[in-house]
């Protein structure tokens, strides 16, 4: 077997596991997705009409790149957004000094890292990396109690949200965010502490 035959053999595997979900079931689920989007869009429009969107500069979210070409309000402006134009992630500095990160897509980690640092969180962010954090970062020994002070629970979150309290970070510690995967399932997010340094966390 030469390289060409090897690649052919590998390629041939892709059609050997059939997807058994019927198209009708997919379309039925698609209708539910579409209906949910319409309801969400209507709710957002009503909220905007009622003047609920409060323009407080300090609370404006910094957003990641749109997942599709956006034609409309600029990112970060309090305006009605069609659900199809959700940003990959959003960072919001909250009144109590906490910083919330909402993840819709694992995309543009460098931008998220830069935004977190600008929000006062020394951070290292990597997505789809083979390591939990870059090789130039070092683990910070953190107890579960310490982690629970830095990363606050966010009950009832409708999406992937992590709330960080920078003031609870121990001296010399920063935050890392990355995706996790395991061979049995799913890619998710993980958060932990690393030793703060210019190269690793920006400060």
């Amino acid at each position, binding site marked *: *077997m030469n390289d060409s035959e090897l690649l052919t053999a590998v390629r041939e595997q*892709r*059609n050997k*596991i059939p997807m058994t*979900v019927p198209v009708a079931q997919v379309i039925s*689920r698609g209708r539910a997705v579409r209906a949910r989007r319409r309801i969400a869009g209507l709710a957002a429009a009503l909220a905007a009409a009622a003047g609920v969107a409060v323009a407080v500069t300090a609370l404006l979210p910094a957003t990641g790149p749109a997942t599709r070409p956006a034609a409309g309000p600029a990112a970060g402006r309090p305006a009605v957004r069609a659900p199809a134009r959700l940003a990959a992630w959003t960072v919001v500095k909250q009144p109590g000094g906490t910083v919330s990160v909402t993840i819709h897509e694992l995309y543009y980690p460098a931008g998220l890292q830069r935004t977190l640092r600008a929000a006062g969180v020394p951070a290292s962010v990597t997505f789809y990396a083979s390591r939990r954090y870059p090789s130039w970062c070092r683990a910070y020994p953190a107890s579960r109690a310490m982690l629970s002070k830095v990363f606050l629970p966010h009950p009832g979150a409708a999406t992937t949200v992590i709330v960080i309290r920078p003031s609870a970070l121990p001296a010399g510690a920063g935050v890392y965010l990355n995706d996790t995967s395991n061979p049995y399932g799913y890619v998710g997010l993980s958060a932990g502490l690393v030793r703060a340094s210019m190269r690793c966390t920006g400060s």
Partner: protein
Amino acid sequence: MGTQRPDFAEFYRAAKDECLFTVLISVGDRDAAQELVAEAFARAWASWRTVGEHPAPRAWVVRTALNVNISWWRRRRREVPVPDPGLVADGSAADGGAGGSVDPPIMAALMRLPLRQRQVVALRLFLDLDTDHTAAMLGIAPGTVQAHLGRAIAALRHALMPERQQESR
């Protein structure tokens, strides 16, 4: 690219198996991969006017399926232990289970690749994306894609053609 949007059902029939296999290579579990891909196709249907004109709609589906995984994080598992990838290769989770007729040694070799190499192999070999599209989808440089692919092929060669490795020494 195409000037006419394809029919969704036709697209689903033509793309579903490749998308399933590509996601399976990343997540390692057939049932989970099937759920994710079905959800991604459902979202594609809901936005078919846009997705149907996407230059690489299969890649859109795969990327959406992988992003859907994030919701699992809601279960507050901030740290998920990562077992030895070799374990899954020897188990039944990745081999397609009943009804699958994949080549077990090839699947085992694929699942032993590091995640990033698996992703590159899946996009380049199974979805037939070019280097630039693969790089854009993974958010890495084209040269890095080529490096990962080269290492992956070397690892596959080592795993599946050991006799040739020895000959070349």
